[in-house]
């Protein structure tokens, strides 16, 4: 088990390491002069441009730039943003709690709604209930997140007037979390259904029935506990998608998280901020996957007690 955790942590470290290489290369793939593009909206002289180039280390060979960047990253320095000249890490950390609140509450909604819908559909496989649940799920999968957000906004804020339109209190979190949660829940419902159907077809479920156990006991003790393993194992990926979806949803609801920051950075061509965001995103996703992998390992004795 310890070995498993170490392996997962090692894999996460590799992911983050590759992300540092990717973001260093990013700036070099920009067609034209990145410094001029970044400062396109500023009044700058040639001398200032060269000074900025030197400060960002862009006059150095790529490999040296990479090691300089890596060295700074290891010290927790992600550089300064072009717009506002703020330390990138501080800016990201300041915005991150909002994003975390959004994604975690959305994940809870997604797992509860999607998980139970998928389980229910698998249990009622082939019936009208299954068909209804899966129709709901595929419609949910097909709706653009931001449109669902706009519809909820129109319904609950504008027409019914129950919830505020924008802002940063917990009442403002309800709609974005619901939007993201329902959209992801639809995906989880489909995945859960197919995982549970696989489980229901397993020999050991037949054995449990053959023992004469009550249906509910077979369902919860044998099928559900086994089904949790594949279902939880796919949550890592779903969380990554949730983080990605949050970027859009934050913009719909003017929720001040890192996603909104990222879009502003892309518009402004604020490369240090974009680099910092990608690295930050990769790190969060990698660490959350480690947590989720360990969770499913705890559920699966083959890993828990394996080598």
């Amino acid at each position, binding site marked *: 088990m310890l*070995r498993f955790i*170490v*392996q997962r942590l*090692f894999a996460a470290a590799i992911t983050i390491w590759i992300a540092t290489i990717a973001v260093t290369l990013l700036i070099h793939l920009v067609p034209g002069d990145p410094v001029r593009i970044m400062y396109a909206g500023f009044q700058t002289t040639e001398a200032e441009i060269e000074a900025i180039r030197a400060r960002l280390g862009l006059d150095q060979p790529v490999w040296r730039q990479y090691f300089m960047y890596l060295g700074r990253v290891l010290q927790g320095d992600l550089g300064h943003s072009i717009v506002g000249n703020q330390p990138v890490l501080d800016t990201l950390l300041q915005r991150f709690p909002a994003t975390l609140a959004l994604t975690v509450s959305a994940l809870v909604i997604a797992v509860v709604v999607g998980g139970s819908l998928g389980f229910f559909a698998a249990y009622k*496989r*082939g019936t009208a209930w299954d068909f209804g649940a899966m129709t709901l799920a595929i419609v949910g999968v097909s709706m653009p997140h931001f449109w669902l957000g706009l519809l909820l906004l129109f319904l609950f804020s504008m027409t019914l007037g129950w919830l505020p339109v924008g802002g940063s209190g917990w009442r403002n979190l309800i709609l974005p979390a619901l939007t993201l949660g329902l959209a992801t829940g639809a995906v989880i419902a489909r995945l859960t259904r197919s995982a549970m159907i696989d489980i229901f077809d*397993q*020999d*050991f*479920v*037949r*054995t*449990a*029935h*053959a*023992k*004469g*156990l*009550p*249906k509910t*006991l077979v369902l919860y*003790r*044998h099928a559900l*506990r*086994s089904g949790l*393993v594949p279902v939880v194992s796919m949550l890592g990926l779903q969380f990554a998608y949730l983080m990605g979806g949050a970027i859009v949803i934050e913009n719909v609801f003017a929720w001040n998280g890192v996603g909104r920051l990222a879009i502003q950075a892309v518009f402004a061509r604020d490369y240090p901020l974009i680099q910092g965001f990608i690295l930050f995103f990769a790190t969060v996703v990698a660490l959350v996957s480690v947590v989720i992998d360990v969770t499913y390992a705890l*559920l*699966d*004795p*083959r890993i828990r*007690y*394996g*080598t």
Partner: protein
Amino acid sequence: MSAPLLQVRDLSVAFGPVRAVDGLSYDLHAGETLAIVGESGSGKSVSSMALLGLLPPRSARIEGGTAVFDGQDLLRLSDRDLRRVRGNRIAMIFQEPMTSLTPVLRIGQQLTEALVEHRGLSQAAARDKALEMLRLVDLSDPPRRMRQFPHELSGGMRQRVMIAMAMALEPDILIADEPTTALDVTVQAEILGLMRDMQARFGTAILLITHDMGVVAEMADRVVVMHRGRKVEEGPVRAIFGSPRADYTAALLAAVPRLGARSAEDGPRPIIDQPALPGAVVLHAEGMSKVFAGRGGIFGQSGGTVAMHDVGFSVRAGETLALVGESGSGKSTSGRAVLRLLEVDEGRIELEGDDMRALSTRSLRKARRSMQMVFQDPFAALNPRISIGRLIAEPMLIHGIARGSELEDRVAALLRRVGLEPVHMKRFAHEFSGGQRQRICIARALSVGPKLIVADEPTSALDVSVQAQVLELMLELQQSMGLAYLFISHDMAVVEEMAHRVAVMRQGRIVEMGPRRAVLGAPRHPYTAALLAAVPKPDPTAQRPKLPRLDLKDLPMGPLAQTAPDHWVAQ
């Protein structure tokens, strides 16, 4: 005779439009063993699942009949009432011990839950009973087993747990659906013995579902023979084996290979008038070793598995060398190694004197013309998206043997050679039966005129009547074309029919090698003797000798030494 315990009348089960079971009737009496035998698709499994309401509810439908047990018709019981019978009065064990236990629950919980449910025992009482059952099924250290998860036990141990679980409630009937089919022959012998012990102790009636006539002869009091959903014959086991009335039963029994049937002969049965005799050495292998790396990744290898250690043998033209052994013995690895489908770590492989391991990729491709392979699962061995005509033609195209209309003529001739029609050329693998598919695989192997064919369990996925036909085809081809066979099998009776010489493998090593008649008739290695003793004989009059209790740790597993002309035994 008293009233039957279970009375099945006119049972019919349909899957969609197909009747899988059609008007089946039989009685099961207290304490007896009734075997239901049949080949795949005979409906033998379906009929027993129907009794306990375990058929897949969406696809299967019980169309009629009754199954009276203890005064009530099982087929008409409510879910609730049927549940009280299941596991309690009628228990069941299944074919696949590896997948029949819930992987995330401890053995202890799986053993006790039915006791708690049906008997209302306290956890402590259920635990005591479970421990007692684990001792009865001869598992070591029961308290530790209780805490273990299924993946920590071997297949044989899991089947013991399944039996303990089934017998803990002392049911009136035990339904055993192919209980030993997935197990090695020595483990099978132990499990069958255990089932008999349990029956004697608890007086349980056993409904044994199997395709294996050897198991039937050894276990059954009475037999029901099924074919395509119908009962073709029923009777006491000696009558069925001694004087079968139905033609189907007679044909089935005739097709069963019997170990010892050719013990007085040196070679296989001659199929043609003047069979080719063993000639020059085609394949010579020596010192082959292979270690499969453990899954370790970056932190180094975590102990590899020794798949082959110092394996060597040779095969002559027109001769069959059989590699026999249980799962994990390295017999398949050896077969694939000589074809260089798998690279050995050490060793020398010569095909007609050429060093195979020294060949470049290009010359190896050319050399493949002389050696071909026939696989265990003929369906998986045929690319599903290419017509069989093109599949058979492919090796000839690759080696530039023929093209155009000549190629087509050759494919047609090959199809006829293996007993199929040239019109089949345009069809795809899924349109053929299992036996036909294996014939297609053989035709493909023959297309390039190989000297050596490695056949890896070529008939173990086939029904016994089809197996007999495919084996006869292989013998006929060998005798007329002088082919060398490396024949890999776990089935001693099939080996006896096919082989000139036999090599017995265990844990990656050859423990005994010599002429078939000597090795099977007078084995010199204790493991060979144990393997042979474990084979169930398809003869109800034969008394199985008491199984030798094999001390696996003390088996001689050292280098081979010659003990008789051409007869080698591990020391």
